[in-house]
């Protein structure tokens, strides 16, 4: 009897959070999935059931595949260099005592400032004639690049800027994770004659596994969500060369008012994210629950 009461009490603790969770995460997803099977755009102002029409049209649409390609490139190219350098810097900082705060802050402050502010700054930096990037490159004899204005470099310009923004954040997480690695292990390896790289490859790398997992998941989510910098720096262009999935969804919903297409893209994105979740939990599930306990 007391047990039953306890259980219901537990639900009470959950209900407020659960309410908003349902209202702003799960209900919208269900509604959006339903809408993705409807035709709903500027010339068809009320949703009309249309089966898989939206998906078929997307399949045949060049821009869709370009956007998916760009998103994929963005995610994979950003993540691994960022994680690697974040770990390296975390290790380097961990080994220094003097100047630690200075290093932490200089790497971390970009994370603090709004992406919108960083975007403004980098638009200026990438400016072909007024920006310091081209000016500095010119001093090395490299011709001025179009950066945001050229379809060859626009995506890379965004990737570089996103890297600058996120590096410090992951570095800090790794730094926290490193606090749990026992110094004695390093001592032992040093005594065995292992050099710096070897020590860290054999000890640090495996031991920050759980942290790496956390960083990986966070990084994937962060890069799939990129929007602000696209919107403010290139608007997906030129020629959709820097268009990625969340921006594309925005374009279709709020620029072209094709809600049918926007919701079908949303459904696809949600499926991708859920699949990633399954994979990550599947492979690393035990580790997560282990470390969470």
């Amino acid at each position, binding site marked *: 009897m007391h047990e039953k009461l306890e259980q219901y009490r537990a639900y009470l603790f959950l209900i407020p959070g659960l309410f908003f969770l349902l209202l702003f995460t799960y209900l919208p997803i269900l509604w959006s999935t339903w809408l993705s099977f409807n035709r709903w755009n500027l010339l068809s102002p009320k949703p009309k059931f249309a089966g898989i029409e939206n998906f078929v049209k997307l399949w045949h649409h060049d821009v869709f595949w370009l956007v998916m390609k760009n998103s994929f490139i963005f995610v994979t190219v950003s993540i691994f260099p960022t994680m690697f350098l974040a770990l390296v810097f975390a290790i380097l900082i961990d080994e220094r005592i003097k100047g630690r705060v200075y290093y932490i802050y200089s790497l971390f402050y970009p994370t603090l400032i709004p992406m919108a502010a960083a975007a403004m700054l980098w638009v200026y930096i990438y*400016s072909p004639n007024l920006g310091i990037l081209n000016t500095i490159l010119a001093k090395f*004899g490299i011709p001025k690049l179009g950066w945001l204005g050229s379809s060859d470099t626009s995506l890379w310009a965004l990737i570089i800027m996103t890297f600058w923004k996120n590096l410090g954040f992951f570095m800090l997480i790794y730094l926290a994770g490193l606090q749990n690695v026992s110094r004695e292990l390093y001592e032992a390896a040093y005594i065995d004659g292992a050099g710096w790289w070897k020590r860290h490859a054999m000890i640090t790398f495996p031991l920050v596994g759980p942290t790496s997992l956390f960083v990986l998941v966070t990084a994937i989510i962060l890069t799939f969500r990129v929007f602000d910098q696209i919107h403010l720096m290139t608007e997906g262009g030129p020629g959709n060369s820097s268009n990625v999935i969340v921006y594309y969804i925005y374009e279709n919903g709020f620029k072209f*008012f094709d809600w049918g297409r926007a919701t079908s893209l949303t459904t696809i994105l949600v499926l991708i994210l859920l699949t990633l979740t399954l994979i990550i939990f599947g492979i690393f599930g035990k580790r997560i629950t282990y470390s969470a306990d």
Partner: protein
Amino acid sequence: MRRKALITIALMVFFSLASTASAKVSLKFFYPVGVAGPLVKVINGMVAKFEKENPGIDVEPVYAGNYNQTMQKVQTAVLGGNPPDIAVVEISELFSLLAMDSLIPLDKYIEQEGGEKFLANFYKGFLGNAYGRDGKIYGFPFQRSTPILYWNKDMFAAAGEKLKAAGLDPSRPPDNWDELVEYAKILTIREGNQTNQYGLIIPGGWNDWIFEAFSRQNGAQLIKEDGLTVTFNSPENLEALRLWVKLMQELKVCPVLRPWNITPDDFIGGVTAMMYYSTGGMAKIRKTAKFNWGAAFQPKRKNYGTPVGGGDFHIFKGIPKENQDAAWKFAKFMTTPEMAGHWSIESGYVAVNKNSYDRADMKAFLKKFPQMTVARDQLDYAYPKMMAVNYQLIRNAMTTNLDAALEGKKTPEKALADAHKLMEEAIKGQ
């Protein structure tokens, strides 16, 4: 617990303060600032003057971003059942607004003002984009422009010898397409693989607008006036696009896809000798350029030609009649000779009211800055800007394909054909 209660109360107070009701007629006015500078301040000043002269009307000017953003906001508001009372959007969007059945016709108001005689005060070139297919007038010009050619007189003088040797006059800008190429070639200065000075910049971003100008100069157009028949892929337009590709890829006298809002910076910074740009950029150049510069008609091909640009006032359905009347009063106020002139001087847009140019302050201003008359004079050769339903989608089709051709990713032929196809699909509602 108490702290949280205090915070909640504070929040509630804030929220309620934010929604105080008022007894006057209250107009929500969405507008884009299509040009640079502290024009938000100018608008606020004009609004304040209007409110002083009309104590029963409150206007809340909502700066909604650039043309794209403003149109998106307006569309979202209309579709959400919460339209603004009056808004300025880019003129090509008229048919989209009409397709949403969101605007009221202004014919009645214009009749009250004197009908044709009233309209005669305004430049005909600017009224072209105000009519719906039913012949009724749905827009009223406010911030209007045309693209023009800006040229750096000092750079022309510096290249005087070379220009004269080529039979060109350094004291005037090119007058036709062929001269454009020749001048640009001479005015481009390279050092190794660095271009220190471009002869010309045709900016990206609104390159569809500039392309429409080149199309008109060649006696063609992009979409017919009915907004339904696409004529994007035509021999004349192909010639224009080939010219652009030649300038950018072959001769390299023009950078590829310089972003729209950076182009004036390049001109001011001495990066280019000439640029195509909206007359609306003139205020910024006037204030910050440290060299002698001029403005001119865009060089002709078969004739001088240009689309107009900018934004018109539109008054919306779904608001109380008294709001609509008040909105018209506001639109009328903003386009009086005095106000239109003031707006023109501050922004670089053309004064939509012909009588603005008879005013003493305008005359004095033009004496100092004769460049401001160029866009107005070019109106003699101006056509309405292209309009179509689903304009955002169409514009996207045009710019992505133009961009691809200019970057050398598609042949001009393919770019025009692809864009043409997409535009037709967008109009059909695919």
